[in-house]
């Protein structure tokens, strides 16, 4: 019983820590996005709350907490209530299999603890893809239950878009899975250790550069970000699927979108950019004689990779206008899908002949 209690306590601590990191990252992102967009457009971004506006996320959070929670007349109350939660949970649940730092363990009272991953399940990436697809239900149900034409159109667009691009995300990842021979994110990251030439973006025998480009574009589309923000196109559909939402429910959708961004960035970092591995062999900490602190450096590298990917999201948002709907679909099915499929063929052949040569 005490062992079970200890395991539970350790797991809950890990979950709380990861959730805390993710929520803080989302808070930072909401500010960082407005700031970076502002700077790119010769503006200042939020400047009023706190010095240089750094307390703006807190002000936004307080505002959203105290806003009136409106359920529109004619809405399906149950689905309207459930949709934001259905959207939020899949966005957060994927972080369970992300390895944040080196694959090391320590013992507490005979229980082995892996501090940097909540659970290393052997189908990690499949689990993330499955829950990312479930998130679409929240959007579709929210759009349908609102009893509003804008919400309904936003939800339908989102359904079509997420289904189309989910496929490309899945197929672009397959190349990496062939190279690593595993679906576990921990194993995939471990296989990329020892310098940036071992990252699957550059690794021989089959550099996954095309797969990476397909993944980046598809993940932008999957998280409904500019230039693929058709489900919430504000010039056509007031705010798309969350037009009728207000207060905390709106905050849930907002949080889910940003958590999805973070998740997609983490997956990109883990699959293509070597995860927590530094771009040079080993770590500086081990070199200067404190190998017990190597995890600090590795976690820093993971954060750097994730945040640069998130910066790319803002950068694209500041640069590109929204695509038309037929362009989005044509691009997804006629360009991204053949590239991803071709990448699988090329990678398989390369890996096959590479193993034959060895």
């Amino acid at each position: 019983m005490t062992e079970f209690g200890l395991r539970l306590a350790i797991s809950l601590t890990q979950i709380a820590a990861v959730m805390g990191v993710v929520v803080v990252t989302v808070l930072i992102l909401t500010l960082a996005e407005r700031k970076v967009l502002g700077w790119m457009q010769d503006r200042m971004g939020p400047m009023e709350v706190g010095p240089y506006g750094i307390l703006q996320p807190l002000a936004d959070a307080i505002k959203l907490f105290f806003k009136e929670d409106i359920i529109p007349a004619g809405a399906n109350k149950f689905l309207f209530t459930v949709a934001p939660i259905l959207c939020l949970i899949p966005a957060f649940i994927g972080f369970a299999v992300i390895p944040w730092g080196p694959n090391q363990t320590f013992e507490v009272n005979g229980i082995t603890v892996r501090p940097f991953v909540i659970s290393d399940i052997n189908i990690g990436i499949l689990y993330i893809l499955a829950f990312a697809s479930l998130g679409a239900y929240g959007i579709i149900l929210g759009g349908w239950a609102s009893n509003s034409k804008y919400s309904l159109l936003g939800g339908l667009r989102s359904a079509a878009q997420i289904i189309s691009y989910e496929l490309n995300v899945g197929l672009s990842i397959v190349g990496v899975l062939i190279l690593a021979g595993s679906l576990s994110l921990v194993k995939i990251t471990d296989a990329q250790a020892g310098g940036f030439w071992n990252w699957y973006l550059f690794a021989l025998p089959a550099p996954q550069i095309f797969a990476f480009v397909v993944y980046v574009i598809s993940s932008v589309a999957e998280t409904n970000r500019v230039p693929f923000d058709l489900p919430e196109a504000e010039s056509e559909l007031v705010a798309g699927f969350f037009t009728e939402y207000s207060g905390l429910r709106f905050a849930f959708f907002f949080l889910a979108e940003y958590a999805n961004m973070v998740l997609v960035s983490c997956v990109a970092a883990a699959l293509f950019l070597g995860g927590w591995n530094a771009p040079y062999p080993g770590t500086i900490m081990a070199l200067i004689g404190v190998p017990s602190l190597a995890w600090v450096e590795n976690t820093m590298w993971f954060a750097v990779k994730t945040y640069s990917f998130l910066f790319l999201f803002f950068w694209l948002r500041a640069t590109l206008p929204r695509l038309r709907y037929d362009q989005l679909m044509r691009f997804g099915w006629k360009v991204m899908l053949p590239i991803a499929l071709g990448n699988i063929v090329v990678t398989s052949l390369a890996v096959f002949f590479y193993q034959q040569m060895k």
Partner: protein
Amino acid sequence: MASTATTKRLNLYEWFKTITFYEILVGMKATLSHLLNYRPVTLQYPHEKRTLPDNYRGMLALLRYDDGTEKCVGCDLCEAACPSRVIRVVSAEVPGEPTKRYSKEYYMDMTRCLFCGMCVDACPVDALGMTREFEWAVYDKRQLHLNKQQLLAIGDRSFPVREKRLELQHPNVAFFNVAFKHVPPKPN
């Protein structure tokens, strides 16, 4: 043959541009250069205010002479000049001086004012002025229906330097605020 070769080369070039996302990268370079050379054009309004131009037309005000008497002679020309019917003047005789008139009541409905300055131009005695005030947002729009006292108060706080009251040639003649060279000065 040469032409097909050039078109093929161009097509290859275009194709290369397409697969490397050349146009998008050009756009991203532009946004990044703005981020790196960060020079915001924003003015943090309540904290810093732009300098107004010299001929700025702000809130209207009624003015006084240096001895504290009102300039307005109640001629109604401002009311006639106003394109949005902002002004309403109730003119009356000055008590005890039947030939002189003044504005007994003077109302301005600033909700309609478009700040064209025509009333100021129309005024023969320069009794109206445009101040440089512009922060007149209120919660109740009735607060923008100004009466004579309020307009005089605005003038008092915005125009501390007042015009000197001219000596009139004859008390029975209404004079506008102009110097008549052919009229001999009044023996004082």
